[in-house]
């Protein structure tokens, strides 16, 4: 079963990873993205995420459909957290189940890169001396074979 969700609750990574597992699969690759305390030399106190929820869910669904066409994978689950997040809390989980691990690693890497460019979610970093809405690097959707640097 594929799924994509937005939630303001803590994300249970293990349950996301388990929900994608079908009988024909031999490996699940799970990305656990969490809140970093230091970006370069600046200390983050906490983060705040907001989404254009209906469009974000549509774009997440598109990512899954695209990835399933281009990689030999079976199921994908994507869960993104919204609201206030403390340091170390999980902001995004992407779990990819596949018959063999290689495709799962490649698809997971492609999906997080694309999610950061295309899914309408925004992050506000709150520092001791101010706050800033982070600007990502949006662009046209990229083919899965493209090899861009991660932001």
């Amino acid at each position, binding site marked *: 079963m594929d799924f994509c969700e937005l939630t303001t609750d803590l994300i249970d990574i293990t349950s996301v990873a388990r929900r994608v597992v079908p009988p024909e699969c031999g490996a699940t690759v799970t990305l656990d993205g969490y809140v970093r305390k230091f970006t370069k030399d600046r200390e983050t106190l906490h983060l705040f995420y907001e*989404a254009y929820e209906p*469009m974000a869910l549509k774009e997440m669904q598109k990512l899954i459909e695209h990835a399933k066409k281009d990689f030999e994978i079976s199921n994908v689950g994507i869960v993104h957290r919204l609201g206030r997040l403390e340091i170390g809390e999980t902001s*995004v989980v992407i779990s990819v189940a596949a018959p063999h691990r290689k495709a799962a690693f490649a698809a997971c890497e492609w999906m*997080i890169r694309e999610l950061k460019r295309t899914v309408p979610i925004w992050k506000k970093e709150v520092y001791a001396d101010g706050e800033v809405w982070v600007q990502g690097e949006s662009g046209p959707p990229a083919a899965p074979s493209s090899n861009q640097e991660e932001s």
Partner: protein
Amino acid sequence: MSVRVLFFGATAAAAGIRETYVEVADSSKVAAVTNLVIGHHPALEGHKLLFSVNQEYAERDACISDGDELAIFTAVSGG
């Protein structure tokens, strides 16, 4: 015609609102609606803006119809 306009993140902070309705001429384009909105909320100027119409990414020259939902935002930063 009437268009619902939504703001998120940096554009919501700049505009000071999350949502508004604007009246524009029939078959206006994204650019025309955006210019009108920037006129009301000048702090949006200077941001590199992206758009969606009815929850699909759209360019400035995309046409808008009565009742459409236009979102104006900056480069996404989830993950």
